[in-house]
């Protein structure tokens, strides 16, 4: 193992985890794409920046969740936490004609503190703003989509979009950071031995 530099200039964020499952009560046979959106100071060092999962369907029994169990493994380096990476998910599935249409977009920041974390994120699709467009999209069997899913990770220009939220995706993360303390960053309250020991139970589904 390399000896840690005395005066580091970059810190590392190592993320492993999985896209566990999804809840889409109205849909079935879905697959999921993921990619990362990060600021200018950030760069991935190892790992895959995007991926596509298998097509999964609900268990015919009692369980109503769609399970992907799809791995994520990536390491980033940066000099500045601004532009902290976000994972952007888009879920697709066939409509009644067999064409793939989008069933949801969603995004969440990679967890900030070392440890294991679980996140449930809401998934939404854009809606047509006019009644005429709604009618033609119903007639043609086509739905509005984002040309670039990465817009869901951006804060600008969202005031013009109308969306419909219709599902949730659950992700789990294991986060390791390196040299953040040496660069002067505090990411967890003083005197707390390990943030992973604190209960990080997710409540997003119930907010």
């Amino acid at each position: 193992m390399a000896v840690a530099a005395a005066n580091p200039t970059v810190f590392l964020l190592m993320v492993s985890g999985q896209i566990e499952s999804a809840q889409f009560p109205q849909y079935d046979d879905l697959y999921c794409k993921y990619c990362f959106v990060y600021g200018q100071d950030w760069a991935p060092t190892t790992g895959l920046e995007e991926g596509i999962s298998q097509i999964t369907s609900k268990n015919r029994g009692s369980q109503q969740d769609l399970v992907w169990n799809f791995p994520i493994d990536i390491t980033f380096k940066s000099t500045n936490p601004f532009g902290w990476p976000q994972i952007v998910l888009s879920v697709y599935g066939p409509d009644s004609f067999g064409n793939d249409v989008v069933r949801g977009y969603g995004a969440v920041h990679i967890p900030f503190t070392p440890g294991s974390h679980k996140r449930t994120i809401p998934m939404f699709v854009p809606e047509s703003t006019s009644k005429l467009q709604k009618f033609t999209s119903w007639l043609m069997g086509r739905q509005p989509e984002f040309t670039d899913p990465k817009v869901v990770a951006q804060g600008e220009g969202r005031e013009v979009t109308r969306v419909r939220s219709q599902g949730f995706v659950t992700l789990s993360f294991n986060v390791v950071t390196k040299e953040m303390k040496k660069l002067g960053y505090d990411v967890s309250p003083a005197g707390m031995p390990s943030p992973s020991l604190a209960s990080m139970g997710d409540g997003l589904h119930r907010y």
Partner: protein
Amino acid sequence: MAEVHVIGQIVGASGFSSSSLFCKWGIHTGGAWKLLSGLREGQTQVDNPQLDDVAYWSHPIDVHFATKGLQGWPKLHLQVWHQDSFGRCELYGYGFCHVPSSPGFHRLDCVTWRPLGSWQEQLSQRFVGGGPQLLNSDLIYMGADRYRLQTCAMGTVHLQLAVLLRNFDRYGVEA
């Protein structure tokens, strides 16, 4: 100078009487604070939820401040609006919350309120919509000048914010 990063999301809102909501937000700081990068204010998308009566926005926040003092720690102020099927917007609630001062990940619930008018105004609001709004939106995050204002409770806005501090211990500040 010490630095503060506030990174997270405005997740959504619950407890409002109808859906199709959006949120205007902003971050107010004292004079000693300088915005280095990121957006200080914005507006979320309009969500029309299908599953439950929680509007989800997933609106990202990522701001970087530098500060010379602790006075005027950042406050987040919110306005929740409702958009009806004709595209008309109506105020549904004001609220503010302080950005947590301890580093780490925080889930925040921001309660909101709305000004009440006279009984004639309340009656007309019941039938045609609309309602009184604040002329001066500074009142959302200020305690002065609130007396004699009649308000009523509205829903809750849910946030997830991570606070990252830099060089606070170099100045002997314990957060």
